[in-house]
């Protein structure tokens, strides 16, 4: 494996639980993946509705930083993942936009590197069998709904991640922990994403449906792979419960935390204490702590 890790701004601030549990897995599985030095913001979803060129040029700075290290890019945040891919795609086209990126950056950026999500690397390169071999504590008895959100699966041609309507990649990782992955219909339904700040009411509407459907289909917790999905489902869960007068109490894990638990890693190291909806009562109840 020849990857360098691009955490992105969210993992550095509001999602340290995702960041720390990722580092714990990299360390435990001995993957030798280090952070890209001096990475910069991908521009997120705030730039493209105003300036298309800027939205594909900003991530090119990070592609360039990875090239300098001679590394491919491993990423966790789906929005960063999408914007790095958009930039790579734009550079590869022989058109005006590609020339404009070169002019903006001041040189032609080589876009031939691989950009992969950590979950893909675990399933396709490290291997599910090896993950199961490393398991010391089966999470048997725990029912988890895998929630992917939109950006990682769509557009399919750009992301090349999994089926956009019924992805199974995270479900496979959940099954590798010994837990049961529930079959449910809202895997890729949008959570409201960036509207979290600008239109919080919209987010509460959309996330309510997600929590309700997960619980209805037998989930005791949800597994996510996106920092924004996590904020909207975890941090805002109290507000959702208040708005709809319905109790959920569904812990929202990052998939990396569940894998870490199955490897017997210290819950502190996996930052389980930083979740807003405490997972400890559920884990104790299942004899997993």
């Amino acid at each position, binding site marked *: 494996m020849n990857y360098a890790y691009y955490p992105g701004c969210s993992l550095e601030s509001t999602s*340290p639980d995702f960041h720390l549990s990722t580092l714990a897995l990299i360390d435990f599985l001995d993957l030798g993946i280090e952070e890209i030095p001096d990475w910069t913001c991908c521009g997120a979803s705030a730039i493209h509705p*105003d300036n298309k060129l800027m939205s594909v040029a900003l991530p090119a700075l990070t592609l360039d930083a990875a090239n300098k290290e001679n590394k491919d890019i491993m990423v966790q945040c789906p929005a960063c993942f999408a914007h790095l891919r958009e930039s790579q795609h734009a550079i590869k086209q022989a058109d005006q936009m590609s020339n404009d990126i070169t002019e903006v950056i001041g040189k032609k950026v080589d876009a031939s590197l691989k950009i992969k999500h950590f979950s893909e690397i675990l399933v396709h390169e490290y291997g599910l069998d090896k993950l199961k071999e490393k398991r010391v504590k089966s999470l048997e008895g725990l029912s988890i709904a895998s929630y992917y959100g939109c950006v990682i699966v769509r557009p399919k041609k750009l992301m090349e991640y999994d089926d956009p309507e019924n992805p199974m990649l995270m479900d496979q990782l959940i099954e590798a922990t010994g837990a049961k992955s529930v079959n449910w219909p809202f895997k890729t339904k949008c959570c409201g994403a960036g509207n979290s700040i600008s239109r919080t009411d919209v987010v509460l509407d959309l996330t309510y449906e997600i929590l309700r459907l997960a619980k209805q289909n037998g989930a005791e917790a949800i597994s996510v792979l996106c920092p924004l999905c996590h904020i909207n489902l975890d941090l805002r869960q109290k507000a959702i419960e208040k708005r709809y007068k319905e109790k959920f109490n569904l812990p929202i894990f990052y998939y990396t935390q569940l894998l870490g638990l199955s490897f017997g890693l210290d819950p502190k190291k996996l930052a389980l204490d930083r979740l807003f909806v405490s997972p400890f009562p559920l884990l104790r109840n299942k004899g997993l702590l």
Partner: protein
Amino acid sequence: MQVNINKDVNLLEFGEKLEHLAETDVKKCYQCGKCTAGCPLNYLMDISPSQVIRFCQMGMKEKVLNSRTIWYCIFCDTCSTRCPQGVDIKGVMDALRRMANQQRIKPKADVRALEKSFASSIYSFGRVYEPGVVAGFNLLSKKLLHDVILFPLLLVKRKICLMPHWVRLAEVRKVMKRARKIERGKQ
């Protein structure tokens, strides 16, 4: 819905510009309505996603640029993924937002305030400083107390960066300035 087509038909110019910006062919749409059915925000829109595409086919620029719909789209891409005709509806929404910004049309939702606050955070630090983004949004949107209650919660869980990181500032600023200049030249 009754619409007056004659008044703002400017089919060729608007249609060509839109298709160039969005890199898609809106003429292919046959109004099956799948985009509207799958849109998670359709319940808040004044005209549905499929209606936006129809108005674009008809060259009704003012109608779509002044709609609430283009500001409510969250780019989840469900519409484009499901379109049986391969029309990139999300791409059209994105292009319409850029057109509306260029023409200084007043946004019909606070989302533009968030985008501005976000961009200025990147320009100031090279990485996004989230407490600054929220503060900037609150100022621009005049919702001063919005989400303020979350700060102590985030502090307790150590989910907040107290200080921004300054990274490759000269390069980031150069990229942003040059991109602005080139895009302005195209208008």
